[in-house]
């Protein structure tokens, strides 16, 4: 049962996705009937499963939602903006309820009530159909029956089933179905009808029964009913075949027989139990149950074609009371076994540090394998065919092992994206801005910890996009844009990293305003010569409060500095591009895994360093590269599409002075997410290897320009270069902002005097 429960919640995730995709389509007026059907079915299936597990809150809410969707499906309600918006809200709440059910926590019912009310007000609120009425169609079917003369060669067993024309007496409470009672309750047996009270001891019951052709058409079978009755006590059956026509006039589809049954119920068998047997044939047969006091005389001839007259068709005294729902076996039903504890699942919880240890060890294994391979080839051992094959297998297996271990921690960003979509919708509602959120690459997998810790920064970012990025609808129309803004959230793999971008098609950053605010805050001086990108980056400064200045729409603190520090803590980078009038894009670049990295091993000033290959674009030898002097003490590298500043890695990290001549060194052309490039001078390139990342912060402290450390195959320790930080802290020589590095100096030079 617990496996099924897990499977239910997994299915819920899928169903919610169908629902949300449908809503998005509906929202964009791009919705065919099948999409609405699929949405309806999703909610319906959630309801069905929730019912099976006794998740009442979920059942109730999905039921109300289903009603509204049913109205939309049937065309009773047009899916206008109000309906769509309510469905979005309801879908978000449904998702919450599922989460609560999964975790076994209680949802906020007051919120549910408000949404439920809205749902009920909108939907046409189908009144419960009146049970007990035959539909017109059914009556027609019953009445239209005409015996037909058929010339048939009847099989022997068919003859047994032939019975009487049921006649028009079909009005017996067709709709009073067994299951419409809202809650059986414990011991849900309805009060017994007088003559059949248990305390009076079992009484003999006389049952007359005749079938309609519908009974056979639906695969029911009187013989099976009798068998079921027989299980309830002593039963004798007599068939009245007096209505049987001559063979020539016989219609095979018609039942001509009436049965008279005598049942001496076993202990505990009530009238309800007996009526329960007729559950499926109620309305397509005529049956009558009457009690007879225990009699000594033989009430019915034993099974024979005895000439016993058919029982009168008029209701026995108790028959009108058959209207209350029959509750055969009712006492045993109800979702009793459904509230299973969530204790045993098909998944296990493992402490993260155990997984990390495993990942680290596998990383070491991969490196060990590489070392072995290297030393074997140096010894000339790989020329032995068998050794070569075995090494190949070892390599492949350790590769698979590494991939598998990585997937333990990886999960798709889908869940995160859905949460952010929802926040965007809510923010849009609060700010009175119409928007749609497009997600791309939801299946992109990312380390679980990273995914979880991204929620907060992304929430900040998406609120920023709604509050500050998107213009008001009237302004958008004025600017010739669609009234509704678009925010795109995308995830993609790019050279060993995951890029998450959030872009809006809003007005872009108001640089004049940002600059003015920064000046007012003393973050920059009016004389500072800042590029557009420099101004954009002011948003990331801790002292830049956009709260009162820029945002008049929302009272929330925006805190892009918080976003940046969160992302940095994850080993990621955040950058921002903005185009006036066209929108803003914030890009987060994250390491795919926090454990292993593909790096170029280099030496510089006698130190061994690792440069992540994810940042590496090209390598040059200095004696062959086109290097030009730039100003007094700077150099640039000419590449095919421009000039790139040259930075000595040793000098940048404080290992040495900038070398005067560079003729025997190598250049590594590195690039960050925004496409900025720098050429790093290193003394030698030793080769490309996978290295296991050993964080410095835990044991030491964060060193500027250094991302982490690693242990190389020869046992030596090497530092891993943080290329992005290195680039961002270098004077952007190709720009005119000579001595004003992008970030840190602002803080030190201007923020301090202001304090």
């Amino acid at each position, binding site marked *: *049962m617990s*496996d*099924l429960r897990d*499977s*239910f919640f*997994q*299915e819920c995730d899928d169903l919610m996705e169908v629902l949300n995709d449908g809503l998005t389509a509906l929202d964009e007026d791009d919705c065919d009937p*099948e999409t609405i*059907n*699929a949405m*309806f*079915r999703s909610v*319906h*299936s959630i309801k*069905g*499963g929730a*019912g*099976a*597990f*006794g998740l009442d809150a979920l059942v109730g809410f999905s039921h109300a939602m289903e009603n509204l969707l049913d109205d939309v499906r049937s065309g009773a309600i047009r899916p206008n903006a109000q309906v769509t918006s309510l469905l979005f809200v309801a879908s978000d709440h449904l998702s919450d309820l599922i989460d609560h059910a999964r975790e076994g926590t209680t949802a906020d019912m007051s919120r549910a009530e408000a949404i439920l009310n809205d749902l009920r007000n909108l939907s046409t609120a189908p009144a*419960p*159909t009146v*049970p007990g009425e035959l*539909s017109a*169609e*059914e009556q027609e*079917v019953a009445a239209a029956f005409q015996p037909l003369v058929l010339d048939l060669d009847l099989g022997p067993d068919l003859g047994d089933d032939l019975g009487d024309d049921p006649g028009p007496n079909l009005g017996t409470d*067709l*709709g*009073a*179905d*067994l*299951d*419409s009672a*809202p809650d059986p309750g414990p011991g849900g047996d309805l009060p017994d009808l007088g003559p059949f009270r248990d305390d009076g001891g079992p009484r003999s019951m006389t049952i007359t029964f005749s079938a309609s052709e*519908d009974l*056979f*058409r*639906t*695969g*029911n*079978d009187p*013989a*099976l*009913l009798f*068998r*079921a009755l027989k299980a309830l006590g002593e039963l004798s059956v007599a068939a009245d075949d007096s209505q049987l026509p001559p063979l020539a006039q016989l219609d095979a589809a018609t039942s001509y027989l009436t049965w008279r049954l005598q049942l001496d119920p076993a202990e505990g068998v009530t009238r309800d139990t007996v009526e329960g*047997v007729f*559950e*499926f044939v109620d*309305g*397509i047969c005529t049956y009558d149950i009457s009690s007879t006091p225990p009699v000594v005389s033989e009430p019915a001839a034993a099974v024979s074609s005895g000439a016993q007259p058919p029982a009168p068709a008029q209701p026995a005294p108790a028959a009108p009371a058959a209207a209350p729902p029959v509750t055969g*076996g009712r006492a*045993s*039903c*109800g*979702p*009793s*076994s*459904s509230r299973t504890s969530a204790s045993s699942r098909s998944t296990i919880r493992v402490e993260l540090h155990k997984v990390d240890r495993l990942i680290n060890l596998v990383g070491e294994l991969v490196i060990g394998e590489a070392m072995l391979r290297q030393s074997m080839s140096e010894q000339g051992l790989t020329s032995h065919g068998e050794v070569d094959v075995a090494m190949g297998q070892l390599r492949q297996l350790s590769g698979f092992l590494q991939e598998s271990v990585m997937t333990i921690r990886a999960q798709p960003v889908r869940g995160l994206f859905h949460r952010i979509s929802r926040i965007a919708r809510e923010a849009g509602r609060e700010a009175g801005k119409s928007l749609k959120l497009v997600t791309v690459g939801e299946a992109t997998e990312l380390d679980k910890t990273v995914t979880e810790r991204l929620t907060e920064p992304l929430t900040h970012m998406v609120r920023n996009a709604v509050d500050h990025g998107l213009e008001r609808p009237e302004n958008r129309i004025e600017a010739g844009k669609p009234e509704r803004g678009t925010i795109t959230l995308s995830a993609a793999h790019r050279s060993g990293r995951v890029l998450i971008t959030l872009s809006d098609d809003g007005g872009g950053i108001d640089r004049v305003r940002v600059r003015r605010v920064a000046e007012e805050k003393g973050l920059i001086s009016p004389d500072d010569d800042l590029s557009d990108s420099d101004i954009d980056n002011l948003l990331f400064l801790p002292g830049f409060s956009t709260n009162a200045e820029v945002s008049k729409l929302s009272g929330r603190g925006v805190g892009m500095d918080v976003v940046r520090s969160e992302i940095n803590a994850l080993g990621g980078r955040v950058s921002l591009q903005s185009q006036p009038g066209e929108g803003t894009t914030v890009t987060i670049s994250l390491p795919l895994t926090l454990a292993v990295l593909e790096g170029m091993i280099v030496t510089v000033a006698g130190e061994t360093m690792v440069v992540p290959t994810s940042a590496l674009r090209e390598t040059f030898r200095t004696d062959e590269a086109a290097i030009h002097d730039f100003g007094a003490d700077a150099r640039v590298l000419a590449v095919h599409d421009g000039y790139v500043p040259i930075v000595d890695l040793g000098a940048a990290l404080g290992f040495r002075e900038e070398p005067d001549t560079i003729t025997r060194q190598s250049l590594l052309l590195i690039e960050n997410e925004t496409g900025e490039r720098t050429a790093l001078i290193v003394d030698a390139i030793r080769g490309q290897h996978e290295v296991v990342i050993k964080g410095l912060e835990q044991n030491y402290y964060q060193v500027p320009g250094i991302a982490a450390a690693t242990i190389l195959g020869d046992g030596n320790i090497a530092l891993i270069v943080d290329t992005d930080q290195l680039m961002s802290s270098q004077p952007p020589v190709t720009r005119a902002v000579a001595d004003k590095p992008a970030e840190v100096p602002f803080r030190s030079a201007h923020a301090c005097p202001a304090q």
Partner: protein
Amino acid sequence: MTKKILAVDDSRTMRGLLEQALRSAGFEVELAEDGVDGLDKLGPANPDLVITDINMPRLDGFGVIEEIRKLDRYRALPILVLTTESGSDLKDRARRAGATGWVVKPFDETKLVAAISRIVA
């Protein structure tokens, strides 16, 4: 002889629940994911009884029943519909389509098995 049941439901959860309940009651179970899948599996499975959901993609439960009843050899095949609706409308519709009986979701295992035993010879 073990009776074989073809259970048709588009919900994975419901299929799982049905499979578990029916197997533990000693039935052989064949599962289908929607109406079309159900009809595809009908011939090969040759079940003694069909249980079908109503709301399904491609072909709904009514369609399944109607299609089955069109075939002579399945005229007497017991078919139960699974429905979360407690109203009589759907049951009437199902019966008109040719359903033998119905089981209301969430179903009680005992009751489900009792209903099946009642209509499978």
